[in-house]
């Protein structure tokens, strides 16, 4: 595995009687997107603030880009970029002027600053409106301007708190795509979200937060395998009226395919097949041999929402809302 850029062990933070973060361990490597996911109030923002040295941890040990944010916050802040939840800018200044201010605070040399700002704004496609006042920007443009700030800083790691909050699906898609390019540049990225499905596609690994703790952690597939009993989900549709065998029979047939760990049927003719590996080929062959018409046979990404819900059903025996 590549170099570890962010590491935290046993982080704890209390506000009065409430424990906001209750013993968290995490490790993020270079070139990796790590998702902090969980409902509102689970402790994601508090964890992020502690990583940046913006809030002091009560207990625990943190190392971010080789520095300790409690002892040496300036070094950490030089090496890490931060996009806060619902980021704000000076509305009366242009995008360029906003970036110039934070760029100078970040200690970027004056002769280099303008070129960096232009490059960053071009990459988030704000170059045509760079001299407009930020007051005229939409929510999506502001988030992109926040990304431009990260690009300008040329940080080793970026921490983004709820970057897709309040964005429409199109803007969300664009923003996530840009975040992915940051990762491809070799940054370590932490992003948080309370809408699990939105960001699961770009996270290499996720940690599911609940009440200040990390409930489970790993890649989405690993979690699916662990919680749902299969890392792969197949959607199988057949025609219930035309030549399909009885529901129980087809379920049994699908269940008998090697590698399949579970079959659920929501409505007649529609099946969800859970498997430990990609079994599309074997399922198709079994269905053809049995003479069952195949209307659809598709591999679907396991849903984090479902993983989260099922995990807490398993723990509590009750349904657990996810924000």
């Amino acid at each position, binding site marked *: 595995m590549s170099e570890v850029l962010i590491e935290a062990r046993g982080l704890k933070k209390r506000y009065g009687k409430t424990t906001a973060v209750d013993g968290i361990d995490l490790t993020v490597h270079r070139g990796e997107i790590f998702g902090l996911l969980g409902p509102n109030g689970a402790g994601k923002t508090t964890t992020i603030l502690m990583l*940046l040295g913006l809030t002091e941890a009560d207990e625990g040990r943190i190392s971010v880009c080789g520095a300790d944010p409690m*002892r040496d916050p*300036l*070094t950490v*802040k030089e090496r890490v*970029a931060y996009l806060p939840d619902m*980021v704000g*800018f000076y509305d009366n200044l242009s995008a360029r002027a906003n970036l110039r201010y934070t760029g100078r*605070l970040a200690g970027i040399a004056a002769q280099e600053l303008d070129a960096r700002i232009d490059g960053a704004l071009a990459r988030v496609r704000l170059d045509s409106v760079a001299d407009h006042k930020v007051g005229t920007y939409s929510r999506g443009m502001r988030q992109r301007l926040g990304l431009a*700030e990260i690009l300008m800083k040329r940080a080793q790691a970026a921490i983004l708190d709820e970057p897709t909050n309040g964005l429409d699906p199109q803007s969300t898609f664009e923003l996530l795509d840009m975040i992915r390019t940051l990762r491809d540049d070799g940054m370590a990225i932490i992003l948080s979200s309370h809408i699990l499905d939105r960001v699961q596609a770009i996270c290499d690994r996720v940690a599911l937060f609940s009440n200040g703790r990390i409930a489970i952690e790993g890649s989405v597939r690993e979690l699916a395998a662990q919680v749902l009993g299969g890392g792969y989900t197949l959607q199988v549709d057949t025609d219930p009226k035309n030549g399909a065998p009885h529901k129980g029979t087809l379920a049994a047939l699908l269940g008998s395919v090697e590698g399949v760990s579970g079959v659920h049927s929501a409505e007649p003719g529609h099946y969800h097949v859970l498997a430990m590996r990609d079994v599309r080929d074997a399922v198709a062959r079994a269905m053809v041999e049995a003479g069952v018409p195949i209307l659809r046979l598709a591999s679907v990404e396991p849903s984090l929402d479902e993983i989260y819900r099922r995990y807490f059903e398993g723990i509590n025996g009750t349904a657990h809302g996810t924000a």
Partner: protein
Amino acid sequence: MAQRMARRSGSPWKGCGIVFEKEFSDHLRSPRMLVLEWLILLTGIGAVFMSIQGLRTTTAQDPFLFLRLFTDARESMPSFLSVLSFLIPLMAIGLGFDSINGEFNRRTMSRVLAQPIYRDALLLGKFGGGLATLAVGLMTLWLLIIGLGLLRLGVAPSGEEVARGFVFLCVALAYGGVWLAVAMLCSVLCRSPATAAFSALGAWLLLSLLWPMMARFLAEIVYPPTDMAILLGVQSPQQIGLQQILARISPSTLFGEAVIGMLQPATRTFGVVFASQVRGAVAGAPLSFGQSLLLVWPQFTGLIAAAIILFAASYMAFQRQEVRA
């Protein structure tokens, strides 16, 4: 707190100049500042104009004619000085009441503090930016008045008058600094700029208008006047002494005393005069510049100390604040 200060590394002032520059240019360009400056310029010049009218009719034998531009009150117009003691706090509060809470409300605070600077730099840069704006406003006004005086009175100020005028400018700036620090403290403590503005204005009204009356009242309670004193209509020295000490809690009193001491060179003392203080003195004879400076020094440093204490209080409150809005 102290523990944290001791173990953190890097300069606490890094970035202070950058914050200062931004705040200063923001203030100079802001419409709010424009309104306040025009208000001060117009009323100030109006007051000076009236006093020039008055001074031209008196036979000009006063060696400190120029200084009377600042202190003379004519007809319905208050003196330039009283206009200033009213408007400087207004301007200072206008500059500072939303400096910290404004960053939180715009949600720029966490973005700025995520840059490699300490909070010290942000707070000091903001205070410096406000103070520089005040200085620019007061300096402009001061130069305008000197210019007006030159044109309309037809005499040039003496070197001593310029020196006294300059000390007056510094005292005015210190006075503005106190109210700027009050406003910034309110902006740290109150999340809503409106609440902060009202708290600061309330403190100003209380200290400037009500406090002198309350000082007298309190002094009377501590040292009840004897029947004889009531009959004669005089106050006991202890009562006057206490009243004066209490009144000096208010920055307006300090400002008033320091300015009178500087601009009216004949001033030898504030409040009660004891025989020992005037022994050998020619009544009405002006003090030298150095003596006047010595006289107002405690008031001047008092104002600066008040500004520093208030700034330190905002600093401590700000250090403890959570970054998230």
